[in-house]
């Protein structure tokens, strides 16, 4: 029972990058296996999470998904839970994995650890260690570079803000890089990402060039949104970054829609190889918002290929998660809607990556959504305007000790995946990238007046017909931006 004001034990465990164990799964997980087969159709509340069918070649045992008639999938009017036949199948045969991270007897939370490591035996091994390597050298350096880029970029943003190069609300991601890198680096180009106002690093991880992001922050016309969006509205159609939303919760339905399109393309438009996945990132505060729950319901109902990623940094501006939420364990809310809920240490990029890999492949297979709660922390205030006086310095220190970048660096060096020199080279390269981006943004032009009325409508006929009978957009003042609409 978590007492208000006191962080629960599970949120303050030390970094475990170095403590991955190869032991058998703890006994309580075995117990879960039996509990998994409890009947679902009887209307009993699903207390345990569903095990994720995670066999590497797992799709062989799935029944062929009917591609033709969507009516067949959803026709049974009698069952309470539309997807219940599939739930039953999961519970009876799939191996119990660490994703079954709850049992009705204890409220202990299991981060992904041992079982996952076992699965990685097929990865190429380096000379020193054997089966506890989760990643290859290339992957490790890629992750490191991405996290360093995120950190360096955000630090530069803070500098630029205080120098008066950007204005408004700027929300920085320092400390949470493991979540963005851990998830987004597993995506394909056609996969979509939806974020919140804390979106710079999601944009960078997804591949939006640093130049485009910083230009957008400076309000220049070379920004990814032509300077019209700003810090909280990063969009990129090339990289399938669907935003950047200022109101919390508002992006989750948009992400659900992108996932819906993926399913629609596959099943209605019959593009059988189309299986893009959408990731929706949002915070702990959003998990008390109606849109969150409504979308969990719809995504699970229609088995949409989406992963809901909660970046639980414990604070919504000045509101502690524990003061705002009746049951602070957000991952538990997944099973209530019929999807697995997973809790993972969000300061540990390798753990996040393994959970992400599973959740994304689950969605890609067509098995439906997953709710992943990443325990993480933001080192800076909510925004650059936040004095950040409410948070306990001891709490901040505790999390600073679990800095994801430091942890990955240590892991790389310990496992001899890279040398100090290589890491330094990466850091230097990133510094140059960020400096170059700032220079580019500084030199870029501000939007001209003529840009004012562009892009309000995709079809500018929407401005209507003026008194002279011509469409307003044909008025030459329109292109100058001085027309009165």
């Amino acid at each position: 029972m978590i007492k208000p004001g006191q962080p629960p034990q599970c949120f303050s465990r030390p970094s475990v990058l170095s403590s991955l164990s190869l032991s058998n799964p703890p006994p309580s997980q075995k117990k879960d296996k039996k509990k998994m087969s409890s009947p679902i159709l009887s209307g009993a509340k699903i207390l345990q999470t569903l095990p994720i069918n995670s066999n590497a070649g797992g799709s062989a045992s799935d029944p062929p998904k009917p591609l033709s008639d969507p009516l067949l999938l959803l026709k049974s009017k009698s069952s309470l839970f539309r997807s219940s036949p599939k739930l039953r199948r999961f519970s009876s045969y799939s191996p119990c994995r660490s994703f079954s991270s709850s049992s009705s007897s204890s409220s202990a939370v299991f981060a992904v650890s041992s079982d996952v490591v076992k699965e990685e035996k097929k990865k190429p091994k380096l000379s020193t260690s054997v089966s506890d390597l989760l990643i290859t050298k290339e992957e490790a350096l890629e992750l490191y570079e991405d996290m360093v880029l995120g950190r360096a970029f955000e630090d530069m943003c803070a500098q630029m803000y205080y120098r008066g190069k950007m204005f408004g609300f700027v929300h920085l991601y320092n400390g949470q890089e493991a979540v963005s890198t851990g998830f987004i680096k597993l995506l394909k180009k056609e996969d979509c990402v939806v974020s919140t106002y804390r979106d710079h690093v999601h944009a960078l991880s997804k591949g939006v060039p640093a130049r485009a992001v910083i230009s957008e922050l400076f309000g220049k016309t070379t920004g990814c949104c032509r300077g019209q969006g700003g810090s909280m509205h990063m969009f990129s159609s090339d990289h399938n970054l669907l935003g950047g939303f200022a109101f919390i919760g508002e992006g989750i339905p948009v992400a659900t829609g992108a996932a819906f399109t993926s399913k629609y393309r596959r099943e209605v438009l019959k593009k059988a190889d189309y299986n893009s996945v959408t990731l929706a990132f949002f915070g702990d505060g959003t998990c008390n918002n109606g849109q969150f729950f409504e979308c969990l319901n719809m995504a699970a109902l229609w088995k949409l290929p989406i992963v809901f990623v909660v970046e639980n940094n414990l604070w919504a501006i000045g509101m502690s998660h524990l003061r705002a939420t009746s049951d602070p364990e957000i991952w538990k809310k997944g099973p209530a809607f019929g999807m697995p809920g997973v809790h993972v240490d969000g300061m540990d990029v390798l753990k996040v990556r393994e959970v992400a890999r599973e959740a994304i492949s689950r969605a890609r297979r067509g098995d439906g959504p997953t709710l992943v709660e990443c325990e993480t922390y933001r080192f800076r205030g909510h925004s650059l305007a936040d004095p950040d006086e409410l948070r306990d310095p001891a709490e901040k220190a505790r999390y600073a000790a679990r800095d994801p970048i430091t942890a990955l660096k240590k892991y790389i060096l310990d496992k001899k995946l890279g040398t100090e020199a290589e890491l330094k080279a990466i850091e230097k390269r990133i510094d140059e990238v960020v400096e170059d981006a700032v220079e580019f943004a500084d030199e870029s032009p501000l939007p001209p007046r003529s840009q004012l009325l562009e892009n309000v409508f995709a079809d500018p006929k929407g401005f209507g017909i003026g008194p002279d009978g011509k469409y307003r957009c044909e008025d030459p003042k329109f292109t100058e931006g001085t027309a009165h609409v």
Partner: protein
Amino acid sequence: MAAIFQGIGTTASLSTSNSFDSKRFQFPSRRSYLSERKGNLFVMRSEGRIIGGSKGRGTSPLVTSAVASKAESSSTSTASKPGHELLLFEALREGLEEEMIRDPTVCVMGEDVGHYGGSYKVTKGLAEKYGDLRVLDTPIAENSFTGMAIGAAMTGLRPVVEGMNMGFLLLAFNQISNNCGMLHYTSGGQFKIPVVIRGPGGVGRQLGAEHSQRLESYFQSIPGIQMVACSTPYNAKGLMKAAIRSENPVILFEHVLLYNLKERIPDEEYVLSLEEAEMVRPGEHVTILTYSRMRYHVMQAAKTLVNKGYDPEVIDIRSLKPFDLYTIGNSVKKTHRVLIVEECMRTGGIGASLTAAINENFHDYLDAPIVCLSSQDVPTPYAGTLEEWTVVQPAQIVTAVEQLCR
């Protein structure tokens, strides 16, 4: 009298029908008018327009028929082709289905649109033909499924969202305002949102306050959306098709009481313009601007007015945002008097915006202040008699025209 005539004779551009073309005025017909108006002075500007004074009964011959003549701007006339007869909700369905056949990315989302066929039968039969995913029965979560439609539109689909009653879309206001309207702009033009949001609104038969709301006034300020209101089976089908084909987000307002209107519409395909208004009945004395159900109250009042000797010009504005200022402007320039009849609330409704727009653009052409008849600023009561008094009735329209044309 002779002196005045002489004075008038020197100006070139005065005509009997009060529109200032360069026709010289016809002396004989003017005489009868002037003899009635002996006591009035009318001031003439150098351009020959008459301001002040009052126009009364026109001098052009009385229009014998007050029935709406459907003079559409860009469509075939229904009189010559056989066509087929149907009800308004069937016309909507026909338009929707034709677009679904034409473009496989067009899909429908809403509560009870699938198996139930739509609470007003607009989507009846579509789920059986096109499947549960293409005609999607959503849970009762307006904000989220509207947002879902927006996300789907951004990624390549063309959803048609049905609000079971327009009032329910108040719950979707966040998504409609922030995402639907603004996303194209804040993304710098990278994503387009070709959604159609449609549903029945307006005051019905004793449906109570919450089911009788007029949401057009709440949505009109949102930048980046277009709003249209249909009123006949012909324009319902045409506007539905145009809205689906449009790259912009369009909100299509239907009316609960108009779903069973019957009309003969053409067999061949037609698409109407989203930005144009519809000339329902040309006239000379007064411009009556209206939309949706009030069009029928106006036409009913027009019958009475014609019998009393007035010649109203009735325009169904159809496009609530943006206004078709060309059609409206031409009419104002012809009649110089404007009456707006709408079902929106008095405060901040479509009529209020239209009044401002006309005043701003056509002030010089007005001979009288614009009169706007709107619903009372009250929640719609349940009792039938009270409900009747909250909306504009034909008798009020007749009175207003009479006052305006005095």
